[in-house]
């Protein structure tokens, strides 16, 4: 019969149309911004800097090694190293970034900076509602705007943050054990000399 194909097709569209009143499978619209889909844990938008503790400046993990700046494909990171040093999470004295700018109008969310960072200092944020009407500075984030706490990191990427914390704790334990071993050897040497 001529038109049979069209009628079969109309049966499919009718099934979808009437089915959308009954099943969420057929009606998949989410009315943003009143309704929102929960973001996936792995989702990534733009980078942010992690700090431990309460003080963002003192607890910033970044040591301004500039590896992320070198590896960033569109070169959106700009770092200026400090002239003095401050102690990091394991107690070693490190440089810190006096300036750390990311131009998020250039950033392409490729996440290579996160991959190459040896200090777990830069991670991907999930905040995407960042539009601004300030076109000359609004999308250039400095280190104060980029610094977010480790608790926030746990909130947005819980399993990843737990893994990072475990790794850093293991490193700290190793460094502590090494320091204790060195101190014990030193006191033994002094005691040996004294005796």
């Amino acid at each position, binding site marked *: 019969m001529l038109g049979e*194909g069209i009628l*079969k*097709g109309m049966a499919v569209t009718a099934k979808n149309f009437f089915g959308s009143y009954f099943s969420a499978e057929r009606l998949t619209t989410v009315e943003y911004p009143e309704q929102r889909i929960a973001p*996936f844990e792995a989702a990534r938008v733009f980078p942010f800097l992690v700090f431990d503790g309460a003080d963002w400046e003192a607890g910033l993990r970044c040591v301004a090694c500039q590896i992320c700046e070198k*590896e960033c*494909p569109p070169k959106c990171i700009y770092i200026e190293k400090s002239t003095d040093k401050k102690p990091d999470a394991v107690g070693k004295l490190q440089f810190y970034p006096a300036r750390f700018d990311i131009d998020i109008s250039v950033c*392409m969310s490729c996440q*290579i900076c996160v991959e190459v960072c040896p200090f777990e200092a830069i991670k991907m944020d999930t905040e995407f509602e960042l539009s601004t009407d300030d076109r000359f500075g609004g999308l250039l984030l400095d280190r104060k705007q980029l610094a977010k706490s480790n608790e926030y990191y746990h909130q947005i990427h819980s399993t990843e943050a737990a893994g990072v914390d475990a790794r850093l704790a293991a490193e700290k334990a190793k460094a502590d054990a090494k320091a204790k071993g060195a101190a014990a050897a030193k006191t033994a040497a002094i005691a040996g000399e004294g005796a």
Partner: protein
Amino acid sequence: MSLTQSDSAAVAGQLEGWSRPTMMEPESEGELMEVAMGPHHPSTHGVFRMDVTLDGERVMRLRPVFGYLHRNHEKIAEGQSYLASMPYTDRLDYICPLTNNWAYALAVEKLAGQEVPERAEYLRVILGELTRFQNHASSIGFLTQEMGAMGTPLMYAFREREKILDLFEELTGARMMVNYMRFGGCRVDASTEWLERTRKVVAGLNKFTDEFDRLLSTNEILMARTQGVGVLKAELAVNAGVTGPMLRASGVNYDIRKVDSYSIYNRCKFRVPLGDHGDVYDRYMIRMLEMRESIGILEQALRDIPGGPVMSPTAKIRGFRPKPGEAYGRIEAPKGELGFYLISNGGPNPYRYRVRPPSLINLTVLEDMCLGVNVADVVLIFGSVDIVLGEVDR
């Protein structure tokens, strides 16, 4: 030293049929009209212009104009490391970022002699076939959109595509610009929950394909508009370097997954659908059938995926300097043969980085297929080639 015009003309004269199409003779008495279709056009799949010369409604000549999306990807790649080019490959054929990543990773692994662990190969196949499925579904959706179906099949295809994009986001962090493959494997391992969710999605794909098929394949309007339109003969297709579903629709059995057997495709059982006529309907049908074959490959790969690491222990992320040499790595991307030709001089950046774009080369025969047809059919023929401008212009 240079060949004279008469020499090459002599050679060309011997090779009848491979020369470029000449402008047709108009039938009516009136003037010919030159229309620029594009670049700002809803049906040109991106910023693309075709200068068509019309006699009434029939096309006398068609000149494609490229370059509106040219971003000089190849020169950018010469100035940065191999890894830094990986996110740029996402943006070539932006509907199928994972297969672009895969082709580039394959080429670099060939260049550097880098091994890839088995689990990573299975993951690559799973993600590649998911990409192929959503690309073909969207392509059919866009084709029907151009026929005037006002978006219904397109939205059904996109509804299914959303499920696949959700899988990508869960695994790689991004829906489209995934930056997931690395030289020596994949960036991040897939959890068992992800594999379970993928199995569930794949289990629903057969039902979707059946529904999609029932909606479209026997539709009289679709058949009337696409059968016999835009016929491409097999010899011209091979000589013009056409690859992918367009070549197979013309009846040529050449699927790089079978020919090169790269990755673990030699372990997967799948068929290669071939067309009889080489018209728009055949290309549509080939894509529909390839969607079904992809589901089969997905089921096999999801069943057989082994454990183990997803990155080779010898792979380097930073400081990657392959030995001097050159390599050409190619895969069967959803659009055709996507190849990367890399020349390394031992440094951290490639000396020459070339993308072989299937979309651009498939367009070589656009004028051949469009001569003598109505303007409305030009849109259909162009849609059946299935191009993405990011790849054509790079």
